[in-house]
Every structure is written in structure tokens, then in C-alpha cells.
């Protein structure tokens, strides 16, 4: 069943074309990676799907989520989807969380809005979610403010918020880029588990090819607003068609080789 259908998505800021004719499908429970460097349009594409593009953006094309057209809908019409059927995790947990609100309350918000839960019940569920995302001492932690937590902990909170209402689609935009490498692995593992358990579809946006290829089966490569290739991870690594994708694969291989060579005790 096709959960998400993106057709000819085009985004402009005034005269500037930032996303050019992007199309792809995502089935329920499937995972798609979107890989590109800065300026590739990958973040704008993900924002278009959740309907969070800035006002200045002119959008054309079609984004159909579970049979409903997303583009050019009003905030009111979309708010029932956001945080509910579609969840999003952002790159910088410090700015994605409200610094003045305790984290438990932030997790409770989507539950109260979309599930109509009362505060007490929502907070109880928030505590459960904190435990689920691997946070220690959840009863005490829900009363903390974001600045009292580490980057990794904040990102787990971000995940808890986005998954609170069991969304069918989780969009993760560079969720581990701002984290230390050691924490990154844990958070990626967590995303993996949660998405699998929920049966949600995953759209994973990143510039990091090794990370993306470990999280998704299919990858869309974006460059300067265009989708230059859409392939499975296997196809991409065994024989990417587009020159740009080939370069990305080569660069990733190069770093990998450097590391392997040294850690297997070869010549430095």
C-alpha cells in the first residue's frame, strides 16, 4: 500500500529554483534515505511532506499522504496529521525543543492534542515513552528542562515526541549529525528499533552515506534540487548510474578504506 506519493515536487523561492521535479513513492513500513550535500534541497523536500515550508516558498506538484493531498493545505487542515500520523525528528535537539517547558510536558503535548488525553494520563504515557527510548530514571527525567540534558538525551526526547502518537511515517532530518559519534550509534540503533516495532515508514535525510545506507533499503540521491538517482542500497554501491552518486560512493569507500587499512594493521 503506497503511503506516500510524491510527484513532480517543485519548490521556488522567488526566482530561485531549489527543488526541481522530485518524485518518489514510499510504502507503509518501508524506509527511504534521502542523501545530498548542503544546498541539495533534501531538507526542503522533507519539510514539504510535513507541510512546514516557509511562507516564502512557492510549491508545485503533488504530495499525497495516505490518500490526502498535503501541498498548499492550510495549517489547520494539516495539524491533525502532524505529530499524529507523521512525526518528525530534527537535527539540532537544542533548538527543536522548547527551552522553557519541561520535557515531560513536551512529550505530552501531541498526546493531548491528538488523542485528547488529560494531562495526568499524557504525562504517565510520557514516562513510558522515555523508558522506551532508553532514558534512565524516567520519572525524574520528565521534570527536567532541555538544557539540563545531554545532546543524546535531548534527541531521545525528540524521538519520544515524534513517536508519541504512533505515526505511520517518521521523517528524520539529520537526526544524529549534531551528536558525538559514540552517541550517534546508539541513537541510530534506537530509531531502527522503534521504527521496526511500530511498523512505521521511515524517511531518513542525511549527507552521510554510510549512515543512510545502514538505516534504509532504498536511497534517493539529490543534488542542487534534482533527484539524480533512486536505487536500492545494493544497486547504489555495486553500480550507481549517475556520476554524482558514483562520486559519493567513491568518497565513502575512500574513508572506509582509510579506516580499514589502518585498523587492520596495514601500511599507514
Amino acid at each position, binding site marked *: 500500500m503506497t503511503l506516500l506519493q510524491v510527484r513532480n515536487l517543485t519548490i521556488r*523561492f522567488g526566482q530561485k529554483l*531549489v527543488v526541481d521535479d522530485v518524485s518518489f513513492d514510499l510504502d507503509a513500513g518501508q524506509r527511504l534515505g534521502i542523501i545530498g550535500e*548542503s*544546498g*541539495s*534541497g*533534501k*531538507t*526542503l523536500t522533507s519539510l514539504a511532506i510535513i507541510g512546514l515550508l516557509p511562507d516564502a516558498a512557492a510549491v508545485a506538484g503533488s504530495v499525497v499522504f495516505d490518500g490526502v493531498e498535503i501541498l498548499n493545505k492550510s495549517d489547520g487542515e494539516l495539524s491533525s496529521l502532524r505529530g499524529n500520523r507523521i512525526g518528525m525528528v530534527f537535527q539540532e535537539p537544542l533548538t527543536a525543543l522548547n527551552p522553557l517547558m519541561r520535557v515531560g510536558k513536551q512529550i505530552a503535548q501531541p498526546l493531548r492534542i491528538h488523542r485528547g488525553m488529560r494531562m495526568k494520563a499524557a504525562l504517565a504515557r510520557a514516562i513510558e515513552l522515555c523508558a522506551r527510548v532508553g532514558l534512565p530514571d524516567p520519572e525524574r527525567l520528565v521534570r527536567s528542562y532541555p538544557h539540563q540534558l545531554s545532546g543524546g538525551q535531548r534527541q531521545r526526547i525528540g524521538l519520544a515526541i515524534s513517536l508519541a502518537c504512533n505515526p505511520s511515517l517518521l521523517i528524520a532530518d539529520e537526526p544524529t549529525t549534531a551528536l558525538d559519534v559514540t552517541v550517534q550509534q546508539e541513537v541510530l540503533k534506537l530509531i531502527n528499533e522503534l521504527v521496526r516495532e511500530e511498523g512505521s515508514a521511515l524517511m531518513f535525510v542525511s549527507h552521510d552515506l554510510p549512515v543512510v545506507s545502514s538505516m534504509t533499503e532504498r536511497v534517493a540521491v539529490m543534488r542542487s534540487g534534482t533527484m539524480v538517482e533512486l536505487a536500492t542500497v545494493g544497486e547504489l554501491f555495486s553500480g550507481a548510474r549517475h556520476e554524482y552518486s558514483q562520486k559519493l560512493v567513491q568518497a565513502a569507500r575512500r574513508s572506509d578504506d582509510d579506516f580499514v587499512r589502518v585498523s587492520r594493521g596495514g601500511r599507514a
Partner: protein
Amino acid sequence: MMRGNRTLTIGVSLVSFSVMLFLLSVIWTPYDPLEINPELSLTGPTSSHWMGTDEYGRDILSNIIVGSRTTLITGVLAVVICMIVGVSIGIATAMSPKWVESPAIFGIDIVLALPTVLFAIVLAAVYGPSTFTAVFAIGIALSASVAQVTRREVNVILLADYVVAARASGSRIPRIVRKHVLPNLRASLFVQASSASAIAILAESTLSYLGLGTPPPDPSWGRMMASLQQYLIADPIFPLWPGLAIVITVLGFNLLGDGLREALDPTLRRDVE
């Protein structure tokens, strides 16, 4: 600078209007503003006196035109003082060690707490009203807020890697201030100067209105308002002219400052992908 910015365009137009009055005052006025014609006292606008005459029969239009001199000169001088003093203190405090910076901030806060006009009144009471006391008082009072804003901005600039790089390149403090701090402050300084001008001009008008600014007979919009307001009952149009002149000038500088901020800020921010 983006001139498509409406605020900026309007601001520039309004300020130009006052500047043009100033330039005009140097070449020509319809009448000698000081010429007294008691028989023409308090006539409304006519074809020979477009804005009418005041209680001494002096042509109001000519006084407005020449009054622009007092306003703009006081305004400009006060702003020059407040910017030089304020920016110097701001930069010096930002670059000083903690034990100098803390009492300095405290000092700035104290001056900031003083109402500008009150400070000027005190000075005028002690030294007698004159253009100089007005300029000095306004300049010093405004310098405190300039110092504060400048200090904060300089602190931000000093955190940038390029300042560290400059130190690693052997650059010393005077050079760092000259080449790195000041150029990056430029935009903010323009905005601050515009806003300070608006406040300075309003303060000068207030002081003149209270009789503490430029003493007669030099025309001054504020003083004109004070003397003409008693004749409001006769015809409300009399104090309207100087009032309008003040409003246009102050609004003009305010909008200029806002417009500059709008125009200069976004170019310093990069677009997100």
C-alpha cells in the same frame, strides 16, 4: 542596500525633506525670520505668508525653514558625541578584563537609568540654557545605550574564529579593533546612529519647548511650539507647523533606522539550504 525596502524609502524621503529645509535656509527664506511686523500679528495662512505669522508678526514659514538648522545641527552634533563616546566605551569595556568590565557596565547602567531630558534640565539649570548644554547633555545621555549595544555586539564579534585567527596571525589589539571589530560593527553603527538621531531631535525639541535649548532669537521648532500653543484657541494651525516639522523629522529618522536594520541584517544571514 535594498531600496525595495519601503520603510527605508519613506525614512530617507522624510529625512531628506528636513535636510532640504536646512539647505534652503542657507540660500533663501521668504522673509527674514526675525523681522517683526506687529500689525500682521497672528494672521492665518495667506498667499503672502503661507504658514501665517506668529504673535510678533514674524513669518512662520521662514522660521520653520531656519529652525531646521537648530534641529539638525543639535541633532547631528549630539549624535556625533554619543556615537564617539558610546562606541569607544563599548569597545573598551568589551575588550577589558573582567575586573574592569563589571564596574564599567555598572556605570553605563547608571547613566542609562537617567532620563535624557531630566539630565539636560539639570545641566541647563546649572550652566544656563544654550545649544551647547543641550548638545552635550543629549550626547552623553544617549551614549550610554550606544555603549551597551556596542559592547554586546563586540563581545559577539570577539567570539568569532576569525578574531582568534587574527591573534594567531600575530595581530595585536589595536589592529584587531581596526580591521576586525569596527568593520563588522559598521552596519550596527548606522542603525544606532539613525535611531539616536530621532531621539536626539525629539529631546532637543523638548528642551527648546521648555525654554532650555537654544535661546531666542534663533528660531527653534520646540520653542515655536511653546510660544504658539497659547494661541491654539485663536487658530489651531499655529502650533501645527512646528509640530508637523518635528514629527516628520523624528519619524523620518526612526524609519531610516528601522529600514537600515531591515536592509542590512538579512544580508548578514545566510539562507538555509
